């Protein structure tokens, strides 16, 4: 266990270092959510005056949606790095060493987690600058970031699992494109639950993105409903456990095929 943690740490450092060496990638990862926030915030501003819309302003409502959406997208591509490692022989080089097998996955997840935190903090800060309110206080904001990280970890694990099974960049890109946008829009990320069509509301009930949005959005309101937050949070935690398990299964199948 101690070894796994130390190895994960080394792998995380390697991942972070390689990431920082691609400054354009870093800039785009950080700028994209800002564009989403300002674009959607401006485009749908008048939603706040629709009858039945509860939030004070649309930006208040939108911010947690953008935080979760950004976490979803930046983690949705973590499998690409795994494919690169497999193609370049780095994966096999790791597997020949006594490195804890789990650390190869958790090291990556940890690095993605750091990206999610930085991204979320920037979005929240910018939203605050343009007038968003966070009546739930610092704890509410922390819960929002935490739910973004848990969702991010799940999606990262799924992406890694997909990469280990498909082993082709093109296939992983296609699969991610197919999944990520519908997951975002089949949720209450951009629209209050009572204002979206019935069938989407039903679908959203089964959508982890919606669980994360609801957990985070509820946590930053003035009157937090702890039962609501814990229920959705619990679903998220179950989801991340299942995804992590799938990733380790996929890893074993990769090892068997070598």
């Amino acid at each position: 266990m101690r070894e796994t943690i130390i190895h994960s740490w080394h792998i995380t450092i390697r991942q972070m270092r390689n990431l920082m060496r691609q400054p354009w990638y870093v800039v785009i990862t950080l700028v994209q959510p800002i564009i989403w926030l300002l674009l959607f915030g401006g485009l749908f501003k008048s939603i706040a005056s629709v009858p039945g819309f509860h939030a004070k302003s649309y930006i208040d409502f939108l911010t947690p949606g953008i935080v979760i959406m950004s976490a979803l997208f930046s983690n949705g591509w973590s499998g690409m790095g795994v494919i690169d490692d497999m193609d370049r022989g780095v994966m096999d080089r790791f597997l020949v060493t006594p490195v804890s097998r789990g650390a190869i996955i958790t090291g990556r997840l940890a690095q993605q987690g750091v990206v999610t935190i930085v991204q979320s903090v920037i979005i929240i800060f910018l939203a605050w600058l343009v007038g968003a309110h966070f009546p739930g206080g610092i704890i509410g904001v922390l819960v929002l970031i935490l739910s973004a990280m848990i969702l991010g970890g799940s999606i990262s694990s799924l992406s890694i699992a997909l990469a280990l099974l498909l082993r082709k960049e093109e296939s992983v890109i296609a699969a991610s494109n197919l999944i990520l946008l519908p997951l975002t829009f089949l949720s209450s990320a951009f629209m209050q639950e009572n204002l979206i069509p019935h069938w989407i509301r039903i679908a959203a009930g089964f959508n982890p993105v919606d669980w994360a949005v609801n957990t985070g959005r509820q946590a930053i309101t003035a009157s937090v409903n702890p039962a609501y937050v814990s229920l959705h949070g619990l679903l998220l935690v179950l989801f991340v456990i299942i995804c992590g398990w799938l990733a380790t299964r996929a890893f074993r199948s990769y090892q068997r095929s070598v």
Partner: protein
Amino acid sequence: MKSITNALDMPNEYAIVVQNLVKVYQDKIRALDGISFSVKSGTIFGLLGPNGAGKSTTVKILTTLSRPTSGEAGVVGLDVVRYPDKVRESIGCVAQKSGVDREATGRENLTLQGQLYGMKGSELTHRVDELLDRFGLSDAANRITRTYSGGMQRKLDVAMGLVHRPQVLFLDEPTTGLDPKARSDLWNEIENLVNDEHITILLTTHYLEEADRLAERLAIVDRGRIVVEGTPDELKSELHGDAIHIELSESQSDGTIENLFNQVSKVRDVVIEGRLVHARADHGASSVPALLNVLDAEGIKVASVTVARPSLDDVYLRYTGHAYHHEEKNEVLK
């Protein structure tokens, strides 16, 4: 060959013992068809054969990456299937495909590799410096490896395989794709390794020259089986006499050549490949006139004749029935 029923009982003098290894992939490809060999500690053992012969598969099993379908393999006295973790501690591996992280510097690559083996602090720093120095990479240590030449990257690969001072090093086609200068540099490094660090090396290669130069013993692998094993000299001396290669103007495949050549005394091992005829004779130079005479009598035109001392090329030809250089050419075309 020595027969050892249980890899765990292998005597200390052997660093690697392979018994009847079979590997069948999911797609039913039989990559290994019962390979057996043993490698003495502190020596270089070469597995020689064309691509697809099963060399890399053997290395993957011995380095715990892949599991055998049947058979046994032991490295430093440990069964690779039962004790993969312990085996990993004592081996280093330079895979056919470079495992260098191209976005990291040479030093970072070596450091991470050491950390994965549990090395740290000044012990690790010293070892990294020592290896950078040894492979002439000190000046490039802090450069991103994407900017390294093929030869430098390969040296870094070897250095990474050595960082934790393994007892056994696997070199899977270490010089494939290198230019002649880089290749001979790496050969020198490999030779020095065995002398300085008393390490055991399993080398796979499809270069006859490389096996001849480096390996103390070697085994020729063809289609998942070992066709012959011995020291390069033993293998060469098994082929008494010289090799005669005759290139005909047109190919003859109706058996006339074999018949004609067998009439000439002291000529044997006739192998025909298209327009090329290979044969052996105790004294090549004195048999050539007789051979040319019989060919001339039949009106068969000859384009060129060469007589050579036996080489591993001939060993390969003799045991597999096809010439080595052809395999290589085909591979280059791929």
